């Protein structure tokens, strides 16, 4: 409480000026829309491409460790984490300056990576060590190591941040880990060689792409079991879900297509030609566009989710993958 009238007056002045400034700055402050940047890990030229969707072009190329593959962008887009399995490194990129702020050696084969919704911790799966590392996002220091199953690949954190889902590729299994205690709560058998996975907004279901059996396992997380296994195209890699939860998209690497799954009827309803060797995939934060990274074509294609047509293409660096979350606020 202001101690005297003078302080009260300046408080009023201050708040009026502040309100005015806020009005001027408009969308940038009021809107909760994350920045329209797409990050692409280019495994072939050791870089990360930054594509600005508003400016319709790649605006920056950031050098990172050798053969970057995995990626996790925080919900607000303030930080981006990259795994480079070949050089066994993790890099942290600042979402504003777009510069590497931290880098460290980690494990023997770090690939799958996921950051918590509050942006404080990042989980990294080490393929060789059968471990998930828990790192502090501010300095990449190791907070814990969680032993998991064989060849952990894709990682996904539940929308409320309470659960970590681990695709244990060579165990044909997904493990559910409590993020508070780091204890494994459940292990759910899925198809053969689960790799990419994504939870639906709201967190009731988890969709898992099985590379060897070329199908998608649908896990009801409340029941703790697979409720459907849906055949998709050859060697599926990544999974994306619409914000309204009604559709799931899967990249089929050898089929050059994306499978469109209806989540109510639990079947594939369309298969879209997208380009060659599609891998990373995301639905944009507005839920109106689908972003697909084509490893062979060195290109990202954007599809309109209303028409399911390709509306734009962006060249990337060499051999792009973007395994994980590569757009802030996307799903």
């Amino acid at each position, binding site marked *: 409480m202001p101690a005297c009238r003078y302080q009260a007056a300046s408080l009023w002045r201050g708040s009026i000026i502040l309100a005015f400034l806020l009005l001027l700055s408009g969308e940038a402050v009021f809107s909760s829309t994350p920045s329209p940047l797409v990050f692409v890990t280019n*495994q*072939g030229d050791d870089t990360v491409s930054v594509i600005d969707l508003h400016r319709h072009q790649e605006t920056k190329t950031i050098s990172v460790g050798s*053969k970057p*593959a995995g990626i996790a962008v925080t919900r607000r887009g303030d930080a981006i984490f990259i795994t480079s*399995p*070949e*050089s*066994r490194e993790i890099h942290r990129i600042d979402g504003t300056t777009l510069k590497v702020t931290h880098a460290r050696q980690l494990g*023997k*084969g770090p*690939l799958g990576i996921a950051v918590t919704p509050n942006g404080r911790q990042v989980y990294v799966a080490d*393929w*060789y060590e*059968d471990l998930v590392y828990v790192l502090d996002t501010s300095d990449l220091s190791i907070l814990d190591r969680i032993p998991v199953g*064989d*060849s952990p*690949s894709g990682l996904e954190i539940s929308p409320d941040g309470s659960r970590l889902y681990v695709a244990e*590729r*060579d165990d044909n299994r997904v493990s559910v880990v409590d993020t508070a205690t780091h204890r494994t709560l459940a292990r759910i058998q899925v198809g*053969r*060689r689960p*790799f990419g996975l994504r939870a639906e907004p709201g967190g009731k279901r988890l969709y898992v792409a099985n*590379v*060897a059996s070329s199908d998608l396992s649908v896990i009801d997380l409340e029941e703790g079991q697979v409720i459907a296994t849906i055949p998709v195209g*050859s*060697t599926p*890699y990544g999974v994306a879900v619409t914000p309204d939860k009604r559709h799931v998209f899967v990249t089929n*690497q*050898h*089929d050059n297509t994306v499978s469109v799954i209806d989540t109510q009827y639990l079947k594939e309803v369309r298969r879209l030609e997208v380009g*060659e*060797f599609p891998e990373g995939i995301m639905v944009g934060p507005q839920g109106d566009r689908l972003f697909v990274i084509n*490893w*062979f074509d060195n290109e990202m294609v954007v599809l309109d989710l209303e028409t399911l047509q390709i509306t734009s293409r962006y060249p990337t660096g060499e*051999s792009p*993958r973007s395994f994980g979350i590569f757009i802030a606020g996307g799903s």
Partner: protein
Amino acid sequence: MAHGVSTMTQKPLYFEAHVISTRRLDKVLCAPESENPFSGFLAFSMTCRHWNYHLVLYQATIATYGARKLQRHAPSSGNLTPRGNLPVKKIALPLIVLLLLTMEAALAHGPTRKKVIIKEQIQASPEKVWEIVKNFHDMSWHPAVRQTEGEGGNAPGARRTITLNSGGKIHEKLEKYDDQKHSFFYRIEKVDVKVLPVTNYSSWFKVEPASDGGSIVTWKGAFYRGYPNNDPPPELNDEAAVKAVTGVYKSGLENLKKIAEQGS
């Protein structure tokens, strides 16, 4: 075992270390070739055989020596903890360390998937060019191929064995075929790296119309090098793999161009 106590309840250290090390190395070296979407890590059948040989020897050594030692040092009733005089420190551990050290290179990161894309412009209609290449079981247009035999026609699932002039053989499987679009997609199921230094190889072949009425043929491959571990020998590294595949595509497409443009 004496006193009815099972040795399994003791779980001596060296058995566990043995299990962990062999499991990890087994995964690196012996995962099936056809199932490896993971970019960096791959098993290779030749290395797998060598590893299995060492593994058998190692397991036999541990089993024989370990079993004999355990028999002599079986715990008295009630005492289930491993005795201090089990040969963990003296024998098994050094063996494990030695094995892990020699295999450390094998534990290191594997190769990244490579790609090769070769295009050739041909002064002949796409229909004519397609006519020459469209039979999956006829590779006579490629100068390095002596003969092709197989079954299944041009249906997905068809298999062929190509015998090269050098005598080497490549076993391939047709995955997709589109007569309308003049394209097909196939995979190598088996090949000796001395013949072609690649693993996990898949390839697309396509004939498209060029603006001048001719054709553009595109031959693309995605593969890993022949040697999956660190420090590959020069003949099995990334460069060797890319060079070999590039050579196959270039020589094939150049000859195809000659044949197609010869008229008739």
